[in-house]
């Protein structure tokens, strides 16, 4: 882990509202476990704290993130020009653990795709992706994903299954039950909660990547906690003990 200076080499919109940012770092970020993230210093004087983003791709000195514009920080980032200087602190946090055996089911909702993209690349054809997006216009988000089976749900019914990605997954789950499935999920809180409600009786292993507002990303401030079932010490740091947790350890 280190804090590495870099320069923006690409910051173009993949689809409206979603940008892919690629940074050339002064040195390689090192080994990244899928699910780990970086704290990015946004090149804008008005933005004080760093922002957390999942590592979308990291090769040698090139680092890519995929982000959605949701507020003032991501808005300022979307306006940053090529060559603008950034600082990248990472890789941070506890990532996904890949099992030796069984089928790997990855469930991503919206921008949650950014959090599982490196995992999908590592898993390769061992994985199947259940993707939930708003509509067919968001499909280009996964255009760089090759060699992986994808089953898509759209909220507006414009492509694939009409409904949420969890309802889609519910219809398919039966065919994986006997194959030692491990589930990996990243998406909005509502998606994680309905996934939990569905999986409750089945108790299959499920790792989820969750989000919380952060200040430091390093475990220093205790600002980013998630409530777990640990009775002695329920609040765990998303940036340190997470962002990937066992679903069954969380109190959602």
């Amino acid at each position: 882990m280190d804090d590495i200076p870099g320069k923006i080499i690409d910051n173009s919109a993949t689809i409206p509202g979603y940008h892919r940012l690629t940074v050339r770092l002064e040195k390689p970020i090192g080994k990244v476990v899928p699910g780990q993230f970086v704290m990015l210093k946004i090149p804008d004087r008005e933005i004080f704290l760093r922002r957390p983003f999942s590592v979308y791709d990291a090769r040698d000195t090139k680092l890519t993130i995929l982000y959605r514009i949701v507020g003032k920080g991501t808005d300022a980032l979307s306006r940053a020009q090529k060559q603008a200087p950034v600082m990248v602190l990472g890789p941070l946090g506890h990532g996904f653990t890949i099992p030796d055996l069984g089928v790997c089911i990855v469930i991503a909702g919206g921008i949650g795709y950014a959090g599982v993209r490196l995992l999908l690349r590592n898993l390769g054809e061992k994985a199947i992706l259940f993707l939930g997006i708003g509509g067919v216009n968001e499909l280009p988000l996964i255009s760089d994903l090759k060699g992986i089976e994808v089953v898509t749900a759209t909220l507006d019914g414009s492509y694939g299954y009409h409904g949420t990605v969890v309802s889609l997954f519910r219809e398919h789950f039966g065919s994986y039950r006997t194959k030692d499935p491990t589930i990996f999920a990243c998406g909005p809180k509502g998606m994680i909660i309905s996934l939990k409600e569905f999986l409750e009786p089945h108790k299959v292993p499920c790792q989820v990547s969750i989000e919380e507002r952060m200040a430091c990303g390093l475990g220093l401030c205790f600002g980013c906690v998630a409530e777990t079932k640990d009775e002695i010490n329920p609040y765990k740091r998303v940036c340190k003990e997470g962002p990937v947790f066992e679903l069954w350890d969380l109190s959602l």
Partner: protein
Amino acid sequence: MGPLAVELLGKTLKNPIMNASGTLGYGIEIEPLWNIETLGAYVTKGLSDKPHHGNKTPRVWEERYGMINSIGLQNVGVEHFFSHYFPFFVEKNLPVIVNFFGFTEDEYVYCARKIPSHDLIVALEMNLSCPNIKKGGISFGKDAPAVHNIVRAVRETTPIPVIAKLTPEVKNIVEIARAAYEGGADGLTLINTMPAAIIDTKRRNMPLKGGLSGPILKPIALRAVYECYKEIPIPIIGAGGIMNVEDALAFLMAGARAIQVGTATFVDPFTMPKIIASLDSWLKENACAGISAITGIAHD
């Protein structure tokens, strides 16, 4: 000891830079980036007699030139700290200032009693911004007689030097500092965060209220250090929005013996090692023999 060394409450620190309480975890988390023994001293996260779980999220929010936090004093409890985390500082031979708090006078006293004397413990730092639940939740630090009493109660409990850490949310901070001094405080830390709130105009609610920190606090903190230095004859540790060596020098010149860096570490985790290195160069460039010589020179 080199030119950055300072004397503080009978101990020698190798430099005047320490973290502000609650902004450097339990000390071990920063190790992947730099060695904690780079600091003059480590200030613990706020500890209490019994563990505290802290508040629900959101706990942190960005403001222009600062941030607001409402961590809720989550901590493992004073006993767990000493059995699990303190040995790390002993191994590093790093002086420690133990920040602690309570919601009643008794809780402060019980906690202080559990803090063992040790060569490396420089002082106990009392966080006086805590709400006093017996007085309707008004913080101890806002009321001069309450400050006097609670400092005295702790002072009588422990042989370790006691530092009173004051809130800026008072009419006259010199009067509060004097109450702490007369209660037996051996030093002052100035200042803690300032009460503040956020309004989310899209959701039309108040997602968070808590303590404001960061560069937005700096001039307020400097004023407190400057005023108290003139009036109160005990060492002052300055804190509030220190981002770089310029800010650190300003606090020293205003009268601080040492300084604490908090929020800046979130913006750049190397802030403290950078300040230490820059102070060293500053002394050389200014042909200054020792850093203690500049404490309070803005008053001359």
